């Protein structure tokens, strides 16, 4: 216990340091001061016929949408046509339409919900040219949007919020590519395969033949973590020994998930010229992170009361890999769901009721505890806007953040985003029940089944991609509806938040005075956390009560379902 807590503290310290360093690097990159690859950048813009001039928010948003639509079409075609495309050593046929739709949406929205089994469905070409490409581009899209939002917040009476193509290109050239190469090498060092061969056929001890799939795993693992994508090469994702062979590899992967999301508040602080602003947001995120991490750890460490005396020790190890142990499994499960990664190194379905509630809870907040690359930060921006508005009036001034007034337009857009999670989770999940599509897909009846269903739609809407694996999502209804949830959860945030950024960029920044509502410091951090909990989490208390909480209190008295 003490050792685990020490490990967590050290982990967090390391994470903070990495985030702060990367945040300054990002400020360097996105203000155009990193010019090492400028010729490469220019070549790209020339080849694509793009002007790197600043865009208004509408142009920026249009670029995002067009780019994602194109990405969707290409990925859909790659999946459908993989039978006739090259690098297909196992001779897989085309992916079925509904699943191809779901997968394409899933990768374009940075969700990477796996409705497919990677090693049994997809060719190496589909994995590399289809999925891995979108792993970079969807992550880049999210980061570019967040960069534009930060720029809008930092600007004074500006018409534009930057250029999407420039932001996207720089994200990939200066952050995602070098980072992925570095992490791929670390993965290869730890024993992750990187080959274009189909795999090997082994003779087992009993004399049977077993095919062991291999492929370009390391490169895909690197970006799936760094870009908080989460779509694994193998079906069981990071629980597979080839995807996540050692405890050290596991730790590197957790850092890879969180490092960019953690860097964003620091980047923000530097961009707005007041690092305290960034620290306040980082502190709010970290306070929530520590809370959910400890909660999940305690829930899992307590073990299953129904197993008391049957297994030793009391820790619940069902669905967990012994090579990671309790602390690293819980850390991974929390990290992958606070950030919208969705890679798993354990079966979340097998977590204890309250332990499994934590990944669900993390996602229900809208992935803002660090969050997905870029997406976490702009999600947090919306909460800050709400917090500033609700509490800002209490200091006797019109609500303002960074000297910019939060007015009816911002409120309208922020209120719109409040509807995204309830629509994607509550409405779509209850529609599944009403249309009779839930009963067949869940593995268990009662509260656990409800949790499985809600988890699936939450994972989709929050663009996470992890699942309670007992849930059979590969039906036309779920492929379609989770696809809808993923789109809603992606662009339902991106468009309003870009609109807010565009509006705020146009406003002047009133100088800070003693009368200005302080958006730094402990009081604000506490306020932000409480607003997130009351406005974000309380909405889902009823369904959590009927799901994991009901399961927990029932198991405690020996009732199972």
């Amino acid at each position, binding site marked *: 216990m003490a050792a685990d807590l020490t490990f967590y503290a050290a982990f967090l310290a390391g994470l903070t340091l990495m985030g702060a360093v990367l945040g300054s690097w990002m400020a360097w990159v996105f203000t155009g001061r990193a010019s090492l690859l400028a010729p490469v950048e220019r070549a790209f813009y020339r080849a694509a016929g793009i002007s790197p001039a600043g865009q208004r928010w509408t142009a920026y948003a249009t670029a995002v949408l067009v780019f994602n639509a194109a990405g969707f079409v290409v990925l859909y075609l790659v999946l459908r046509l993989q039978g006739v495309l090259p690098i297909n050593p196992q001779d897989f046929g085309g992916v079925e339409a509904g699943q191809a739709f779901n997968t394409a949406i899933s990768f374009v929205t940075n969700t990477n919900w796996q409705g497919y089994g990677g090693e049994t469905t997809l060719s190496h070409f589909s994995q590399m040219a289809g999925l891995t490409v979108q792993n970079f581009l969807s992550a880049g899209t999210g980061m570019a949007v967040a960069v534009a939002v930060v720029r809008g917040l930092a600007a004074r009476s500006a018409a534009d919020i930057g250029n999407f193509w420039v932001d996207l290109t720089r994200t990939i050239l200066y952050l995602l590519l070098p980072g992925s190469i570095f992490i791929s090498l670390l993965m290869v060092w730890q024993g992750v395969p990187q080959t274009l061969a189909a795999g090997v056929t082994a003779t087992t001890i009993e004399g049977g033949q077993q095919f062991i799939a291999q492929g370009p795993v390391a490169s895909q693992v690197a970006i799936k973590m760094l870009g908080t994508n989460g779509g694994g090469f193998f079906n069981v994702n990071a629980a597979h020994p080839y995807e996540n062979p050692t405890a050290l590899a596991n730790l590197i992967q957790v850092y890879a998930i969180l490092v960019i999301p953690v860097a964003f508040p620091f980047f923000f602080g530097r961009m707005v010229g007041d690092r305290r602003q960034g620290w306040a947001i980082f502190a709010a995120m970290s306070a929530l992170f520590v809370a959910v991490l400890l909660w999940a750890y305690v829930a899992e460490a307590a073990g299953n009361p129904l197993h008391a005396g049957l297994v030793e020790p009391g820790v619940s190890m069902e669905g967990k890999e012994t090579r990671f142990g309790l602390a690293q499994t819980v850390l991974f499960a929390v990290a992958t769901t606070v950030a919208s990664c969705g890679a798993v190194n354990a079966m979340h379905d097998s977590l204890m009721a309250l332990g499994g509630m934590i990944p669900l809870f993390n996602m229900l907040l809208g992935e803002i505890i660090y969050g997905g690359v870029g997406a976490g930060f702009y999600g947090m921006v919306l909460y800050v806007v709400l917090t500033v508005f*609700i509490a800002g009036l*209490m200091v*006797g001034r019109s609500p303002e953040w960074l000297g910019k007034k*939060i007015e009816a337009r911002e*409120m309208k857009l922020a209120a719109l985003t409040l509807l995204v999670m309830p629509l994607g989770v509550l409405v779509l999940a209850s529609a599944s029940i009403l249309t009779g599509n839930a009963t067949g897909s869940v593995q268990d009846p009662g509260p656990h089944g409800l949790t499985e269903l809600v988890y699936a739609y939450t994972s989709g809407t929050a663009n996470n991609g992890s699942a309670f694996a007992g849930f059979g999502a590969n039906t036309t209804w779920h492929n379609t509806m989770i696809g809808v949830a993923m789109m809603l959860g992606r662009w339902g945030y991106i468009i309003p938040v870009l609109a807010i950024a565009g509006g705020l960029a146009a406003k002047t920044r009133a100088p800070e005075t*003693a009368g200005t509502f302080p958006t730094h410091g402990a009081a604000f951090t506490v306020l932000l956390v409480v607003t997130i909990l009351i406005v974000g989490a309380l909405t889902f*208390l009823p369904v959590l*009560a009927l799901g994991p909480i009901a399961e927990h209190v029932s198991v405690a008295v020996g009732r199972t379902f």
Partner: protein
Amino acid sequence: MSKHQRSEIGLLAPEIVRPAARAAVAKLDPRSLARNPVIFATALVAAVTSVLVLVRWGTPGSSLALQIALWLWATVLFANFAEAMAEGRGKARADAFRASKTEARAKALLDPARRDLFEMQDVDLLEVGDLILVEAGDIVPTDGEVIEGVASVDESAITGESAAVIRESGGDRSSLTGGTRLVSDWLVVRVTTKPGETFLDKMIALVEGAKRAKTPNEIALNILLAGLSLVFLLVVATLPVFAGWSGTEIPMVYLAALFVTLIPTTIGGLLSAIGIAGMDRLVKANVIAKSGRAVEAAGDIDVLLLDKTGTITFGNRMADEFVPVAGVTEREVAEAAWLASLADDTPEGKSTVALAVQQHGFVESGQRQGADFMAFTAQTRMSGVDLDDGRSIRKGAADAMARAFPQGGAAAAEPVVRRIAMGGGTPLLVSRDGQVLGAIHLKDIVKPGIRERFAELRRMGIRTVMITGDNPLTAAAIAAEAGVDDFLAEATPERKLEYIRAEQAQGRLVAMCGDGSNDAPALAQADVGVAMNSGTPAAKEAGNLVDLDSDPTKLIEIVMVGKQMLISRGALTTFSIANDVAKYFAILPALFVAAYPQLGVLDVMGLGTPQSAILSAIIFNALVIVALIPLALKGVRYRPASAGELLSRNLLVYGVGGLVAPFVGIKAIDILVDLARLA
């Protein structure tokens, strides 16, 4: 100065409460409800619930359902009542104004040149530009500008100030307000407003809140509240599905109760009352806001432009010390100054006499006999006295004295003059028999307590800027003494306008007050422009607030009222949203305990039965609106402090209070509900 304060209307005065109660019912009109999305939603739910109760009457739980329906209606009525109370206070004030509006007819002049030739004309038929005659005893029929005559006017109907004021043609005192009464003489007035649009008409409409447009913050807040209501609608609408999955059915009435307790009815119900009450507080301070937007902007002010004269200083220079030149005693200077000022009735003269008497105890004993006093003239810029004993005393501006007595040793006084001027004072030289004795140091006296006031404003993050026509040297000295943050010396209307623009370009909000026509551009440019009621029509038109007392210091009070209004809104919003936590914990276990008995652990309050829990929550939700009406009307207590301190304090009171209060309140109501066996 005598002043009869507007009679204070008690917070719960029966003459306000009774009509408000009637108005609360009248406001059930859907068109009126639709202005407030949260309360409109509540009324809809109440209506649906009532229908359900009627249709299913006799089934088990009917009595509880009826009680819930009634409390839902009560919630709507309480919100209506809060608004009606706020409006009622405004109406009471409006009635007082209306009393001064007469059906009187105007004396329309037929020939501009002859004021004995007029015909009585209906006020409603007067047109802009018409000339009318107003004579002693007449009530001024409409707003206008004096073009001929001088008269004293009793403006108490508008300002509450009983001392009559002078109105005359030309200059800054030419504006005449309808509803006031001429005490003496006569005036020829050019009509400047159309009937029905006079200042008095506008005031009545404003204080009644009839044409009250929502302020920007109010609109934004309404959007947020509507958004939250929509979220809760999704929560409650999907709940039966999830409950059905869990094998339990939730009665519609319970869902209705859950929905109404979750949506922010508290702030939704009190929001417009807060706005109306804010305007009302301004009226109480004798300030008329032309729009709620201006009051709100007053809370956001970063820079306050204040005229030096009358605001920061008393406006009159007063003698502060006597400074002798070499070889002369201070007493000699004081005596000469005293003698020269004996017949001087100006504030400077009086203060010189007072200072001399105070410091040296001079007693008048026949000095006036046979003395020949010389009054101050613009030509000589000197005054003085030739006494019977032959002494000839003069006092005057340094340059004038130097010119009058070239040999009188004015040069010797040069260092004294320079020292006084450097310190922001005005030197007056005193001479006896052509020989300069020394100087009277005249000083602008800074009002006591104003320095502390500015320090207070500074802590609130507001910079004060002193506007003065003085030269920069004098201005700097007074600015330092008064403790303002900046000053604008040798201010002209153009320079004021430039200053305001420059501040605004940096994102600051500026407030100023003014009265002259030349202030109009700056008043219009400022985010908050307070025009003095004594000022010209142009100034009153340009400003967005009018101070009936014509007191420039009022600007500070206006800022306070604006801030208080914003704080009240924020505090009640925070309180309302924080309340939801307890309501969830009261209602959810009650709804789900049938499906999962162990979920009773969520019932942290230990409420009697599921039914009593739901009823208690909805009763609390309704009563809290009533309980907070006084707060909404009076406004949250506000003491000037920095934003950080205000945030911490208000968070503690309204945030933490909002979390805790409903836990206590619902539990208490639940005990009563159980005792009375209501559920």
